C-alpha cells in the first residue's frame, strides 16, 4: 500500500522533474510516477540545452530555484553564448550535453531533494470525484490518493512511432506508450488533439571523417547557466562539426517519398515548422541544393553522435543510403534510424494561469501535453505547475508571472490565451518586452520572489545584492571621476571616436557606441584602481554597461509594460456571463466564454476581442 501524497507527478521528463522540485521545495509531499526511472529527464532529442530564447528560459528556471540549469552546467561538454554580435537582450547561452550524465545528475538531485518519492509504474487513470482530483490508478492496479496531480506525459499518450511504412506503438524509441488517460479525460469533457515530432538517426562517431567537416568549437571564455555557486564554467570542451547534404542525398531521399508517412497521408497531425524533417526541407525548398547538418557528440566518452538537421521518418534503408552520401559520412555506421512520433495533447486554452485545468480541480498539465516542444519550455511549465499545486494545497495565492517579467510568463499567457496549432516553441520575438527579459537579469527579475516563497536560499539573494551594489558603485564612481585626455585619447583614437580636449566625467564616455566599458578601463588608471580595489567583476561591469547604454530603450519598454499593467490589475470574476453583456460583439462573447480570461489584459490579447469590447468590459467591471 502506498501512502497518500500532496502531489503526484505523472511522467519524469523535464516538466515532471521540475514539477517535483517546485512542489517539494515548498514542502509538499511529492510522488513521481514514471514507467522507467533510468530515463529520468531523458534528453530524447538533441543532447543540448538552451539556445536563442530557450537559454533565457533556463536562466529563469534557475532564478526560480529549478534544477535544469544546474544539471545542464554539470553535464555540459561545450558552452557557447549565441548572438554575441547582437544586443544584450539577444545573448543566448547554449550547451552541448553529455546525455547520460544529464539524466544521472537529474536523478541524483531529485533523490537528494527532501519530500520526493518515486514509484515505477504506468498511470492509466485518474480518480476524480465531484470535479476534484482524488488520486491516480496505475497499470499494476494500485490506487494512490493525493490532493493534486500534475500530468507531464510528453509524447507517451497514445504515442505512435513511424519509420517509413512501419508503425509501432511507443512513447520513445524502445519504450512503451501510455494508454487510457486521454479517453478518460475526454469523458470528463476535455478536448484532445494529435501532434507530431521527429528525431534524426544516431551514428557511430568512429565511422565519421571529421577532417572534411567544419569544426565548431565552444567559446574561448565559456560561461554557464546557473546563477548559483554550485556550478562553474567548463575548463575543457568538445567540439561539434558542421557538414552539408547535397543533391545526391536529396535524390536518394526522394526515392522514399511515396513511403514517407508525412507525404502519403499516414501522419495527419501537425509538426513543428521550425524543426522540419529533412524530407520536408527538400520538398518545400526544392531549389536549395544543400542543407546544414550539425554533428553533435552525445557525451564526453561515448562514440554516439547525433545528426542534427537530419530528422526523418523515411524507411530506414533510405535513411542509411542517403546519410552515407553526406560529406564525411561515407563510411557511417548507424546505431538507430530516425523516426516520427505522434502523440496526444490537450489544447492549452483549457488551462488557468497556474496550469491547473479549468475542468478538474487539482489537475495540472505541463509540457508537451500542452502542445509545446522543447526541454526548456517543458521544464518551466513543470516548475510553475509544481509551485502552484503546492501553493494551492497550502491555500496561498497563486504564483503567476506576467509577460514583462519572464519568458515563462509569455509562454503560459500565449498558451492559455491563444492556444497553439503546432508544437509551440519559444522565440524572442514572442516577447513584446524583449529588452527587459534578458538572460543577464533573470535573477534580478525573479529571485527575490522565489526567495520569499522558499524556492532559493539566502546565497542567491546575497549574490544578487552584490551584483546590484557593484552596478551602483560603478555609477557613482564614473559620475564623480574624470577622464584624463592624455590617458584616454590613444584609446579613443584607436576606436575611431572623437578625442577629448579637456577633462570630462567618465560617465559621459559610457554611451559612445564605439566604446565598451573595458576600453574606458584601459584608458583610465584611476578606473583600473577602482575596479581592483572594489573587486568589481565581469557580471557587474556587464550589467552596468547594458543598463546605461540602452537606458532609453529599457525605459520605453518599461513604460509600455506599465500601461499594460493597469489592465493586468483588473481581474475578471470567473462567474461573469458574457452573453448577458449585450454591448459585447458576439464573437468577443463567444471567445471569452471559452477562454475565461482572468484579467482585462488577458482578454485584450484574445483574437477577436476589440478595444471597444475591452471598454465595454471595463465599464461593467471597472471603478
Amino acid at each position, binding site marked *: 500500500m502506498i501512502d497518500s501524497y500532496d502531489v503526484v507527478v505523472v511522467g519524469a521528463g523535464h516538466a515532471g522533474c521540475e514539477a517535483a522540485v517546485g512542489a517539494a521545495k515548498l514542502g509538499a509531499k511529492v510522488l513521481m510516477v514514471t514507467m522507467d526511472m533510468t530515463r529520468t529527464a531523458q534528453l530524447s532529442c*538533441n543532447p543540448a540545452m538552451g*539556445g*536563442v*530564447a530557450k537559454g533565457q528560459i533556463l536562466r529563469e528556471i534557475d532564478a526560480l530555484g529549478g534544477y535544469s540549469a544546474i544539471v545542464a552546467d554539470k553535464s555540459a561538454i561545450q558552452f557557447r553564448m*549565441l*548572438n554575441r*554580435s*547582437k*544586443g544584450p*537582450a*539577444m545573448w543566448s547561452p547554449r550547451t552541448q550535453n553529455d546525455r547520460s550524465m544529464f539524466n544521472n545528475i537529474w536523478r541524483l538531485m531529485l533523490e537528494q531533494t527532501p519530500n520526493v518519492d518515486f514509484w515505477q509504474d504506468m498511470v492509466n487513470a485518474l480518480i476524480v470525484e465531484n470535479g476534484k482530483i482524488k488520486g491516480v490508478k496505475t497499470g499494476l492496479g494500485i490506487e494512490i490518493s493525493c490532493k493534486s496531480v500534475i500530468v507531464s506525459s510528453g509524447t507517451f499518450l497514445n504515442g505512435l512511432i513511424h519509420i517509413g511504412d512501419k508503425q509501432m506503438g511507443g512513447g520513445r524509441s524502445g519504450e512503451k506508450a501510455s494508454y487510457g488517460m486521454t479517453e478518460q479525460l475526454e469523458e470528463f469533457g476535455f478536448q484532445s488533439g494529435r501532434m507530431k515530432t521527429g528525431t534524426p538517426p544516431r551514428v557511430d562517431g568512429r565511422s565519421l571523417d571529421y577532417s572534411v567537416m567544419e569544426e565548431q568549437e565552444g567559446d574561448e571564455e565559456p560561461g554557464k547557466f546557473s546563477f548559483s555557486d554550485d556550478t562553474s564554467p567548463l575548463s575543457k570542451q568538445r567540439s561539434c562539426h558542421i557538414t552539408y547534404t547535397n543533391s545526391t542525398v536529396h535524390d536518394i531521399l526522394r526515392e522514399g517519398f511515396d513511403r514517407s508517412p508525412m507525404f502519403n497521408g499516414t501522419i495527419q497531425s501537425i509538426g*513543428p*515548422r*521550425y*524543426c*522540419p524533417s529533412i524530407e520536408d*526541407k527538400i520538398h*518545400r*525548398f526544392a531549389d*536549395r541544393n544543400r*542543407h*546544414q547538418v*550539425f554533428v553533435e557528440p552525445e557525451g564526453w566518452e561515448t562514440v554516439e553522435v547525433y545528426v*542534427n*538537421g537530419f*530528422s526523418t521518418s523515411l524507411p530506414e534503408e533510405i535513411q542509411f543510403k542517403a546519410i552515407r552520401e553526406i560529406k564525411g559520412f561515407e563510411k557511417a555506421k548507424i546505431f538507430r534510424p530516425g523516426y516520427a512520433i505522434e502523440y496526444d495533447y490537450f489544447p492549452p486554452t483549457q488551462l488557468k494561469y497556474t496550469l491547473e485545468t479549468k475542468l478538474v480541480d487539482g489537475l495540472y498539465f505541463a509540457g508537451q501535453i500542452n502542445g509545446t516542444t522543447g526541454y526548456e519550455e517543458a521544464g518551466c511549465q513543470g516548475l510553475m505547475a509544481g509551485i502552484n499545486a503546492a501553493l494551492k494545497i497550502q491555500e496561498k495565492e497563486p504564483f503567476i508571472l506576467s509577460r514583462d517579467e519572464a519568458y515563462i510568463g509569455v509562454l503560459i499567457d500565449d498558451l492559455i490565451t491563444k492556444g497553439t496549432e503546432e508544437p509551440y516553441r519559444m*522565440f*524572442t*520575438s*514572442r516577447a*513584446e518586452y*524583449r*529588452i527587459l527579459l534578458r538572460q543577464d537579469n533573470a535573477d534580478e527579475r525573479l529571485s527575490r520572489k522565489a526567495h520569499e516563497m522558499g524556492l532559493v536560499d539566502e546565497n542567491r539573494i546575497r549574490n544578487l545584492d552584490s551584483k546590484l551594489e557593484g552596478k551602483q558603485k560603478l555609477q557613482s564612481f564614473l559620475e564623480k571621476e574624470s577622464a584624463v585626455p592624455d590617458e584616454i585619447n590613444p584609446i579613443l583614437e584607436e576606436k575611431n571616436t572623437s578625442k577629448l580636449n579637456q577633462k570630462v566625467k567618465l560617465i559621459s564616455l559610457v554611451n559612445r*557606441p564605439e566604446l565598451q566599458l573595458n576600453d574606458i578601463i584601459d584608458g583610465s588608471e584611476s578606473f583600473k584602481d577602482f575596479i581592483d580595489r572594489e573587486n568589481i567583476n565581469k557580471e557587474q561591469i556587464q550589467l552596468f554597461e547594458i543598463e546605461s547604454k*540602452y537606458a532609453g*530603450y529599457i525605459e*520605453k*519598454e518599461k513604460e509600455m509594460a*506599465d*500601461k499594460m499593467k*493597469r489592465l493586468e490589475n483588473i481581474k475578471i470574476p470567473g462567474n461573469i456571463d458574457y452573453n448577458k*453583456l*449585450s*454591448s*459585447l*460583439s458576439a464573437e468577443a462573447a463567444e471567445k471569452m466564454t471559452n477562454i475565461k480570461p482572468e484579467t482585462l489584459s488577458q482578454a485584450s490579447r484574445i*483574437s477577436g476581442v*476589440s*478595444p*471597444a*469590447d475591452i*471598454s*465595454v468590459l*471595463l*465599464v*461593467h467591471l*471597472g*471603478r
Partner: protein
Amino acid sequence: MHSNTEDTICALASGSGPAAISVIRISGPKAIEICNTIFKGKDLNKVDSHTIHFGTIREDDVLVDEVLVSVFKGPNSYTGEDVIELSCHGSPYIRQKIINLLLDHGARSANAGEFTLRAFMNKKMDLSQAEAVADLISSESEASHKLAMQQMRGGFSSEIGKLREELINFASLIELELDFSEEDVEFADRSELKDLILKVHKLAQGLIESFKVGNVLKNGVPVVIAGKPNAGKSTLLNQILKEERAIVSSVEGTTRDTIEDEAVLNGVIFRFIDTAGIRETQDEVEAIGVKKTLEQIETAAIVVYMFDVNTFTPSTLRDVIKELEEPLSRNGAKLLLVGNKIDQQDEETVRAQYKDFDDMILISAKDNQNVEKLSNKLVDLIETQEVSSSDVMVTNSRHYEALTKADASLMNALKGLETGITGDFIATDIRQSLHYLGEITGQITTDDLLGNIFSNFCIGK
C-alpha cells in the same frame, strides 16, 4: 484607472455635417498644455477653471481660425479630467486642421465612447448608467468601423495591403537574424535593410500625402480670388454663392467675420479663402493686387486672378503671371485668369487683345454673364488633377493618424540602422510601426511574422 496616467484624447464633439460652429473636445492630463501650444491668446496654463477665452489657432504663425476656448479643470469637468472645449467655425476643413494640430502636439484620437467611458470611470456618472455607457461605446465603435470599412475601398485597401506586406517582410528580416542567427540562411545586410525601409517609407508617404489631397476633395477645394480693388471680386463671389445659396454653408450671422465661404459646384466643394478680406472696402495701394495672394497661396489649390478688361493691359497681365509663376508651381496650385466687366466692351475686341492667354474667361459678374462657365472651369481644373481620378486615397483621419505614426516609427528604425544599433533595438521601432499599421489592418501578430519567416526561409534543424 487613475486619470493621471491616461493619454490625452481629442475628437469632434459636435456633429460631423457642415455647421456654423463646431466644438472640439480635448480631455486628459495634457489637455490644457497641448491646446495652449497652438492657441494664441491668453496663456491657458494660467487661467481659472470654467472660463472662456477668445483667441486664434495658428499653424506656424499662419492663421487657421478664430476660436473660443472653454477651460474646465479636473475633477470638475465632464470626464473628471482637465477638459478643453474649443469652439471653431464649422467648416470641415478647419475642424480637421485643428484636430490634426492637436494630434501633432501629442493628443490622440479618442476611441469610441472614450469621453463617456472616462467620465464613468472617474465617477462622474452613476453605476446605473453602466449599461447605457456600454451601449454607447459599442454603437460608436460599430459606426466608426463601418465608416472605416467604407473608406477601405478598392485602391486604398490594396495599397494598405501592399504596405502591410512590405512591413511584415521587413520585420521578418529583422526577426530572422535575431531568432534564427544559427540558421544557414542569408541575412540581409544593413544597406539592403535601409533600402527596404525606404521602400516601405515611400509607400506610407504616398498614402499620407493622399490624405491631404483626399481632404481637399472632402473638405473643399481652397480657392483664392485675387486682383486689384474694384476688379469685381466681391461681386463675383456673391454671384457664385447666390447661385448655390441652398447648399452653401456660410458662417455669416455669427458674431465674428466670415473667414471662408463654401459653395458646392457640380458636386465639388469649393472653399473661398479670406472672403472677409475681399468684402472689406478699404483701398489697397498695391498696384496689381497679388501681394495678399502670395501670402495665401500656400493654402490654395486654385488662384482666380480677376481684372477689369476696361482698365487692364496684356502686359500688366504678363507681369502678374510672372509674379505668381514660381509660388504657384511650388505649391502645385493652378491659376485661372478672369477678365471682368465684359458688358462694357465688345467681347471679340477684348478676345483679340488677349489672344495670347488661352485659358482666360471673360465674364460680367454684375450681369451674371459667363459665371456658370467660370464655375465649370473651376470644376474642370480639379478633375483634371490626376489625384482626383484615383481612388487610392486616405480619407479617414484615424487612418491618417495611424499611418503617420507608423511612418514616424519607421523613421526611428531608419535612424537606428544608420547609427549602427543592433537589430533587437531596431525591432522595437518596427514593432511600434506594425502596431500602428495594425490599427487599420487588424493587429499583426508574432505568428504573422513567424509564418512569413517559415514560408520564406528554410529554418530548422
